[in-house]
């Protein structure tokens, strides 16, 4: 993490992370659509990078994070190796889950990333329990759990948040509100004012932030995590962003109102917004372009390299299921 007070360095780091996330996902989409190398579904977070970068900039490698099906950005920002991630998306050996999970189950325990999840809202109770475990152990590590706006209508949202408050756990819940849940406009399916108000009804402090303003996200998260690290109760960050593309890379998102995505792209792109801020602070366009180009080059290399990696050995199909009664010993 950059030194406090060094705002430009911090913003530069955020920009770099956002550019890397963007580039990673652009390559992932190409791998899926152009190259047909990604066989399962991927859920890009293009346009939402400020939340991932801003939130995770406040967490250390050994803090714990859980994420969703749309988790590439959070995972990279938590410190994961993009090559291992890309290999995972391609189902290859050396993928961070050995090719067994794919995009929807990406995880890197080495950087405290305990998994994306294919079941909406399921990560909320798991993350809560991780915080419970840390508290039991007297650890000073904390937990951040990210979920979408659609996830707040499932039971685990209620059960997890209630639990965290009751047991006073060191956890930050981040609702990454991109307005859509799959092909549905979340507002149409949501009673009341949403995540923050629901958290408050559970006695949890909630902060709402412009999720496309990386600095605002980083600042808000910094304040919250300072409180949590100081022993404060669990909190929520409600980050308002926008899902620019479809639900998956294959979804043309025809259900969106005409012009909405275009307008958001033009006016609310988190990378452009941070570039504008940095430009005002005196960073040159050339320097920012370099950041962009380096990120692009990095991720192009990542894809090239990942595509060269072999698939995992067949016998891995029976490995890492369980020790006792393992299918590697006894499959039937």
């Amino acid at each position, binding site marked *: 993490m950059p030194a406090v007070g060094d705002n430009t360095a911090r913003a530069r780091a955020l920009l770099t992370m956002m550019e890397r996330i963007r580039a990673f996902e652009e390559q992932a989409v190409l791998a899926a659509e152009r190259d047909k190398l990604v*066989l*399962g*579904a991927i859920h890009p977070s293009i346009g939402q990078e400020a939340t991932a970068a801003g939130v995770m900039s406040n967490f250390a490698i050994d803090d714990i994070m859980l994420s969703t099906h749309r988790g590439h950005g959070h995972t990279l920002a938590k410190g994961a190796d993009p090559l291992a991630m890309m290999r*995972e998306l391609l*189902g*290859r050996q050396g*993928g961070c*889950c050995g*090719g*067994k*999970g*794919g995009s*929807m*189950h990406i995880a890197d325990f080495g950087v405290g990333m305990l998994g994306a*999840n*294919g*079941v*909406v*809202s399921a990560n909320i109770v798991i993350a809560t329990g991780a915080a419970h475990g840390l508290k039991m152990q007297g650890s000073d590590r904390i937990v951040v759990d990210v979920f979408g706006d*659609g*996830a707040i*209508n*499932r*039971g685990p949202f209620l059960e997890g948040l209630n639990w965290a408050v009751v047991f006073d756990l060191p956890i930050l819940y981040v609702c990454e509100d991109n307005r859509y*849940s*799959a*092909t*549905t406009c979340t507002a*149409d*399916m*949501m009673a009341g004012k949403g995540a923050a108000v629901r958290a408050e009804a559970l006695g949890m402090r909630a902060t709402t932030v412009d999720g496309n303003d990386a600095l605002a996200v980083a600042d808000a998260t910094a304040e919250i995590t300072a409180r949590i690290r100081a022993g404060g109760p669990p909190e929520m960050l409600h980050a308002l962003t926008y899902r620019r593309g479809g639900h998956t890379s294959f979804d043309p998102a025809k*259900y969106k109102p005409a012009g909405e995505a275009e307008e958001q792209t033009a006016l609310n792109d988190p990378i452009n917004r941070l570039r504008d801020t940095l430009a005002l602070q005196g960073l040159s366009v050339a320097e920012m372009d370099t950041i962009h180009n380096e990120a692009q080059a990095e991720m192009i290399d990542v894809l090239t390299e990942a595509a060269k990696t072999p*698939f*995992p050995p*067949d016998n*891995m*199909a*029976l490995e890492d*299921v369980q020790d006792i*009664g393992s*299918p590697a010993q*006894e*499959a*039937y």
Partner: protein
Amino acid sequence: MEKMTYAQAAREAVRDAMNADKSVWCVGEDLGRGGVFGQYIGLQDEFGKERIVDTPISESAIMGGAFGAAMMGTRPIVEMRFSDFALCATDELVNQIAKARFMFGGQSRAPMVVRKPMGLWRSSAAQHSQSLESWYVHIPGLVVACPATPQDNYSMMKAAIECDDPVVYLEHKNIWLLEGDVDRDQGYEFGTAVRRCEGQDVTLVSWSDTANVCEKAAATLANQNISAEVIDLRSLWPWDKNAVLESVRKTGRLVVAHESVQVGGFGGEVVATVAEHAGNALRGPVRRVGAPRSLVAYAPNLEDQMRVTEAMIVAAAKETMGL
């Protein structure tokens, strides 16, 4: 006769049923956009948002809510998207829906169809690939349907909608695009299997997409002068014991094949039933062909390790013949 895909056949069955009976409706996430697999395409335009109901991501409320509405005399079709997500509504299905009529001494009915697309579908990984049909067979109160062809997905869906019991309706994700002839007048009676090929040497019992694989295996076996009889059970509760027992009494040999995990799978029930009732008719060892007790991985080659293939079924059939 019309040519349709498996997905279209189900959609047409739902459509015909909704036209015939205005108490029939559908409820689930993203149905207005046609459903995740296009199996509801056009229906919201035709029947409106009140009868093709898009919902919050709330599986308990979808399942439990549909049950409440069913008790009020409506006939909901519940869409669970992937059978895996239905596990978020297990209490509702198993403790509430399946048990209410009995617990309340016959006062209630739950005429509802619970659609749970199941099975392997390229690189969907462990949380989007399960086949848990044997679970539902084990739960009194539930009817369990596993259609394998467009015709059956039409006829069985219609029968499921007309049925006054809760029907767990397991479509296989791998065959949404499978085409076939559909006769809208062909009815379906639960508990009836279909003999997909007649044969003398060995009986292959299966259901869902694996029944299609068995049919291919039978063709391969035929080339090797082995005459296999293929029985597609179609519904697993009730199930057509007689069809299986008769066939085994004729052939003296039995292979049961299914995509789900072999241990604790419904194949065990079939083999046990044959052992109990026609054990002395067996002229060779019985064989089950199911997935190893492992999980479905994302990497395609690992996923393939969990697949029940034509070659495996052919090999098992030969084993029962001592070949």
